[in-house]
């Protein structure tokens, strides 16, 4: 009797086996939650550090003042001949500007006590004299007139307003003195110095080590955009055609097996290897110019192809065979079947794969270093298609470049460039999602 009772299992009390299974399940869930928490934390940390460091890169300290362009100084011959006017160098414009600033300070009644004339001039960016000279040479009619001239303040003053430079660090810095910063404070109060959004960061060219305030991403953005256009134009058709052939037409044999294994392996090849290949093949052998978007795009295309091919084949494979049978059954040829029915159904997957591949390519640095895109480029590339053959920079390489420089102002700019890069990646992913939705909605 009692033995019988013992074997009756109550549903209200879980047996030890069930308890163990439930414990294992709970354990597994907690692992999962822990993994998610860690990755979310890492993401938040990354984004917040980039944003705190980089957001300030989008604003800059500007100096705005009225400058009377004295014809006697800037055009000594007095005949407005451009060639003659070019004889006044940026150094000449520098001293001219220095005097103009001092005059402006006097006019506003701002004391320059303890600050030498050269130090007052030092508040301006080293870019300023060149800017003014370009302006005058472009329009000699300005001579003799008073113009409103806006230029960058030096990076140290900008850093002081953003909290990067302090009185203590300025005292140790032979480029800046605390007195200069105090003067800057007074000038800001008088409205001479303002901190505002700086379009030059997004559209201007890179600048040298000594003038971080005028360094911009314009050429890098343009170079990256050119490369992405070329990668899309080259990689998408080649990748899709290769995938369609391999998936739909090629016979399964040893040869196609080898190709398949090779494509899978290529996807895992370190990107720097592609850079060496690009250097040897496109620059040394074919003779394409260095540092140009066309070479960068060719290398990135080689890198992106395996990703696109693998994604495209996977999405072609996922098209149900019944659709192929239906098309063949009404007498469509193999090609009609693929192009009328299989390809449209595979399109969302193909586009997603392509954009993921391109996003990878957009962030790729190593191969571009090897083909010379690390060069310092000051001139904007021309409009396509000639521009594809002009030297340009690329966003990730610009980030790498700026982190190499000594002035801490470039750390801020590198973080700013990372934000721009992330925004571009975000836009590409949104495009991928939108295209996906749109193509899927059609059925």
């Amino acid at each position: 009797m009692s033995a019988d009772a013992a074997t009756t299992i109550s549903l209200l009390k879980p047996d030890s086996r069930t308890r163990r299974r439930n414990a294992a399940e709970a354990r597994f869930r907690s692992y999962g939650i822990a993994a998610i928490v860690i990755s979310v934390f890492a993401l938040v940390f990354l984004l917040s550090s980039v944003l705190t460091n980089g957001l300030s890169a989008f604003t800059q300290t500007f100096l705005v003042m009225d400058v009377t362009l004295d014809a006697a100084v800037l055009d000594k011959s007095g005949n407005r001949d451009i060639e003659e006017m070019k004889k006044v160098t940026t150094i000449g414009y520098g001293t001219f500007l220095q005097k103009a600033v001092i005059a402006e300070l006097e006019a506003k009644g701002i004391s320059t006590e303890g600050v030498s004339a050269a130090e007052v001039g030092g508040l301006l960016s080293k870019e300023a004299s060149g800017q003014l000279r370009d302006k005058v040479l472009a329009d000699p009619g300005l001579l003799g007139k008073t113009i409103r001239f806006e230029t960058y303040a030096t990076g140290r003053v900008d850093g002081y307003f953003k909290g990067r430079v302090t009185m203590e660090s300025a005292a140790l810095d032979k480029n800046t003195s605390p007195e200069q910063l105090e003067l800057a404070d007074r000038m800001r109060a008088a409205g001479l110095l303002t901190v505002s959004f700086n379009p030059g960061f997004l559209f201007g060219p890179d600048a040298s080590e000594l003038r971080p305030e005028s360094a911009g991403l314009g050429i890098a953005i343009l170079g990256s955009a050119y490369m992405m256009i070329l990668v899309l134009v080259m990689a998408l058709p080649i990748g899709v055609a290769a995938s369609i052939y391999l998936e739909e037409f090629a016979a399964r044999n040893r040869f196609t097996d080898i190709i398949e294994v090779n494509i899978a392996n290529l996807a895992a090849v370190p990107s720097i290897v592609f850079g060496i290949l690009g250097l040897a093949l496109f620059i040394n052998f074919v003779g394409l110019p260095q540092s140009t978007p066309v070479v960068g795009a060719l290398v990135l295309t080689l890198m992106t192809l395996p990703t696109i091919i693998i994604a495209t084949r996977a999405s072609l494979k996922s098209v149900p065979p019944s659709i192929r049978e239906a098309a063949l059954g009404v007498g469509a040829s193999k090609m009609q079947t693929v192009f009328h029915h299989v390809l449209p159904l595979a399109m969302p997957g193909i586009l997603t794969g392509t954009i993921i591949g391109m996003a990878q390519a957009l962030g790729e640095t190593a191969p571009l270093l090897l083909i010379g895109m690390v060069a310092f480029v000051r001139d904007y590339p021309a409009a396509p298609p000639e521009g594809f053959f002009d030297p340009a920079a690329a966003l990730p390489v610009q980030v790498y470049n700026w982190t190499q420089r000594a002035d801490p102002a470039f750390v801020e700019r590198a973080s700013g460039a990372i934000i721009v890069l992330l925004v571009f990646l975000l836009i590409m992913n949104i495009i991928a999602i939108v295209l996906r939705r749109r193509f899927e909605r059609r059925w």
Partner: protein
Amino acid sequence: MEAVAKDISVATDAFGGNKIEATNVQVYYGDAHAIKDVSVKISERSVTSFIGPSGCGKSTFLRCINRMNDTIDGCRVDGTITLDNEDIYDKRVDPVQLRARVGMVFQKPNPFPKSIYDNVAYGPRIHGMVRGKDETDELVQSSLKRAGLWEEVKDRLLEPGTGLSGGQQQRLCIARAIATRPEVLLMDEPCSALDPIATAIIEELIDELRENFTICIVTHSMQQAARVSQKTAFFHLGKLIEEGPTEEIFTNPRDKKTQDYITGRIG
């Protein structure tokens, strides 16, 4: 054996001319011998059903008739199958042209993920059978009417075909198949995914279509074979065991295996 063969030919003569004649057909999937020496005659404007247990090769044989097996890697077909006395496995035959004349309806309804209209119009369009919108409209309408679907879909021709019910989808597939004006219609278990009401509608439809088409239907349901077909062929393990008028097969089978199958002892 000879006597049996004679019997069959006598039997087929009762249904007018032979549309399709298969002689000593062998099908191999790689090393597997899927169809063994099948010879069968299919008469014009009648329904021939292929019955047999799963894996007996009836679907494989059906797919030989429009060369759908060509698309399978490692599949080889020996022997001859003639359509109107022309060998469809001749080197000069383009399977694409053949499939326009031999339409097919599959086990699972598989409309294209396009509009109802485009589903039907697709075949005629790629074969250049229609010129202009009026002609296409007319053909779509007549095909849908013959498939008994027109009344149900005439107001929503531009909606996706995949939004129809299972039975409607299958009739859409039939409309799509007959839109290319084929002579032969192959149906591979067309009702196996449908409920009894939808099945009854399709069976009725098959009976009507018989007037214009030569129909071969693979089915697992012996009742269905008995209801819709005039001739029945019984396959077992890749061999054609017996064929003849449906009534005869079901009431007076010559072979013991046939008898066992239709009485439910094997299968």
